[in-house]
């Protein structure tokens, strides 16, 4: 369908796409640059010298809130959410391969979990916990709140994967005498492993950056996004940008690491 010569439409759209990418990354790079602002520099350009001043500032307790603590909490919460999201979505994906009564309501409940405004879930869980006499905390109520955001993504991805998954592989395994556990462990699981890692990445980043649902459910101790959100109103130095740079670089590392893992698995498979 393609003529060898690129059409004018192509160049027009290529420019449009390039502008879109600039729009996505431009502001982010402004923050990255400004976080190296000199000690006397302000929140905007020009750069008043170059320094790591604001990064050191980040680790002084009085300059920002509890950066180290909130980072550790967000990390732990993200890992918990990742593990549970992968396991629960995988099980649900397997369940949806068969028809069962209640499958459709459960599917639409997952979709609902995606479309119900975050702040409503936050409010609901907060009020529910206080009425039950439970103390909200990031590892209980906050954990549950995050799962209502990550699980629907996981379930939809698993749903999409098993939609395209041919059952003939398992039939072949069964014909060769494999038990259902063996065919899952040695046939299905290796095939969907890269997608599962993708679900995990989604779970982690969504949780690590989530704050609307954490607002009423984190209890006494803030997660990192809540800490940053609080800073937007009362911090007027580039330390805010330093924090932004650090957490963005961390996100990039997580994404890059996961992608490398997926690519590595795919490569080994195509060789084997």
């Amino acid at each position, binding site marked *: 369908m393609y003529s060898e010569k690129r059409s004018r439409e192509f160049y027009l759209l290529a420019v449009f796409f390039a502008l879109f990418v600039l729009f996505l990354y431009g502001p982010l790079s*402004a923050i990255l640059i400004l976080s190296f602002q000199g000690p006397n520099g302000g929140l905007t350009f020009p750069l008043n010298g170059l320094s790591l001043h604001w990064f050191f500032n980040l680790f002084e307790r009085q300059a920002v809130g509890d950066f180290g603590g909130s980072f550790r909490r967000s990390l732990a919460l993200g890992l918990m959410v990742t593990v549970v999201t992968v396991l629960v979505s995988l099980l649900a994906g397997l369940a949806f391969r068969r028809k069962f009564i209640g499958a459709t309501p459960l599917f639409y409940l997952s979709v609902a979990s995606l479309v119900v405004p975050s702040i*409503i879930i936050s409010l609901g869980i907060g009020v529910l916990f206080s*009425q039950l006499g439970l103390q909200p905390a990031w590892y209980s109520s906050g954990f549950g709140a995050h799962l209502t955001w990550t699980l629907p993504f996981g379930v939809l991805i698993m749903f999409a994967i098993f939609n395209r998954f041919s059952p003939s592989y398992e039939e072949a395994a069964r014909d060769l005498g494999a038990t259902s556990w063996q065919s899952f462990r040695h046939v299905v699981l290796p095939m969907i492993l890269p997608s599962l890692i993708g679900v995990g990445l989604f779970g982690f*980043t969504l949780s690590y950056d989530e704050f609307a649902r954490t607002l009423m459910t984190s209890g006494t101790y803030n997660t990192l996004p809540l800490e940053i959100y609080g800073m937007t109103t009362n911090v007027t130095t580039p330390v805010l940008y330093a924090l932004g740079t650090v*957490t963005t670089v961390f996100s990039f590392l997580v994404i890059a690491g996961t992608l490398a893992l997926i690519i590595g698995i795919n490569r080994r498979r195509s060789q084997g």
Partner: protein
Amino acid sequence: MVEVRLLGVGEPKQKRELRLPGWLTSYLQATPLALVLGAFLLLPILMIVTVSFWDYDFAQMYPDFVTFNYTETLGSWVTWKTYLNTLKYAFLVWAITLFIGFWVAYFLAFHIRTAAMQSVLFLICTVPFLTSNIIRMISWIPVLGRNGLVNSALVGSGVVSQPIEWLLYSDFAVALAMVHLYTLFMVTPIFNTMMRIDRSLVEAARDAGASGWQILTNVIIPLSKPGMAIGTIFVVTLVMADFSTVQVMSGGQSASVALMMKNQMSLLQYPAAAANAVVLLIIVLLMVSAILRVVDIRKEL
């Protein structure tokens, strides 16, 4: 001598396997999801509906059955203005993200020739969306502010004599930041749908003498509609639920329903916030079910 051996005798015994009936396995596998969503989605929403009928004072709530949380909210013109404002954002952001999302997805799906290049470019679009929303929001401040990049460039080049004030802390800034935050939710589903359009349909149209524009309007756009519908669900529900972008980017000069709720929550007026939550939830669910009439999500995944 003829040895008589009964079938199955003397052969190694088949390993016993616990075989559950299929339906039971499915239920067991679906249970964790149902439990989590039941406990952290259904119960909290039921709680909100209940609490929206409760009485309250400055310190706590009292179980009751009163309707003034609703009548107060719906009887005030501030509420109506806030709802209208939220709908305005939703419409604006939806229209812009649909336009950008469609052309970006179209470029990736139909103009990039190799699958590897497609993945790389798609990934470039995706990565920022996996980083913090708040950071991406505040990253506009040094760009749009009074002394920001745009204003210094404009003043420096002599296009304007005074810095433009409405770039930051305005409706413009809110809409811009929302487009920045949510466009991927439009790109991904449309791209996904376009990749599944049978390329021979495009060829057939071309052979039948259709121009590029006719192919676009008669083949590609109609077949991409499910993707647009799913993207619309994402963008509309995200904007309707947004409070942080409105708060940060309007500098407190604009309001949205969720922001109004958040303010009520910080004043511990939970029943009032709950009444608002119920109204907002009904509106959002109505919008989504209207869109779901156009598209069957289960088929599109």
